[in-house]
């Protein structure tokens, strides 16, 4: 299964991620 987030945010929104990385619930996805 898959979860897809689609959202609007200001231009300076940043993801703290790398493609392919494992992630766990509660960890940061991104912020301004």
């Amino acid at each position, binding site marked *: 299964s*898959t979860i*897809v987030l689609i959202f*609007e945010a200001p231009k300076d*929104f940043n993801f703290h*991620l790398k493609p392919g990385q494992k992630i766990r*619930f509660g960890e940061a996805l991104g912020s301004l």
Partner: protein
Amino acid sequence: FHTAATRTLFRLRPFYFLVATGGGYVGYRQYEKYRDRELERLGLEVPPRLAGEWEVALYKSVPTRLLSRAWGRLNQVELPTWLRKPVYSLYIWTFGVNMKEAAVEDLDHYRNLSEFFSRKLKPQARPVCGLHSVISPSDGKILNFGQVQNCEVEQVKGVTYSLESFLGPRTPGDELPFGSQEPAREAGQGEPAGAAQAPAHCSFQNQLVTKEGNELYHCVIYLAPGDYHCFHSPTDWRVAHRRHFPGSLMSVNPGIARWIKELFCHNERVVLTGDWKHGFFSLTAVGATNVGSIRIYFDRELHTNSPMYSKGSYNDFSYISHSNKEGIPMRKGEHLGEFNLG
């Protein structure tokens, strides 16, 4: 004897034909993978090899929903206590499950694999990040993330799907974050969103972005079979609307996501839309063959992976009513729903 031999031969021919064509197809695919690896080794960019229409049609013709429901029925069978440890230990070993995080570590507690699959975690197992405005709603693997460009969302690098096909066309009613004033469309009467003309396509993305200077972002998280399969609210937001797309239940593992364009638009999915402090926000749970059912804890009306559905349709449900103008408020990290087997 003569006719018997001919009859047998005649009966066996289709079998041999299938084996030969299947083997040839698999062999050719292996050769393509080998060639791609060689090109990558030479440092050349290899474009993703997408499935042809006939391959997608062939895959979609597989009764994945029926298989999924049968898989679900099988996993609802209560296991005798002596069988639970061996079965669940095999699953734990196969998919690398970490039972130390489970709220209940005793394997005999779980009556069947479905219950085991929907296990909860110890509250302290997943601390919720207080610093960042958006957190991961689940365990999993990041398939892709970034800005949405030209109404196309990347399911994996280089393979996209249409934003409008995925979310469905804008829905009437001022309570929705889409904010359109189109005449009301009966629930379930929706036609595939692809019906919108090209010019509307780009305006679709612009209409999702409600504030000047904002952009549209996306993030795709793949949950592997051994992962914790509940999901939580990724931020503080209000859920205003749910759109359920009955659909196929093809596998969504990264290899298939690299092969079938628009995969997420073919599959059964539940789109929750609303808004957060910066405007539009949506979370979509996409089902797969072994995980065909999606539960949203505050939505008792939702029934997924049911036998009867009409292809290309969708069902709308608004959480905003006369008595509840706000929709469903969700705090960051709050329990939101779960994927179930079958």
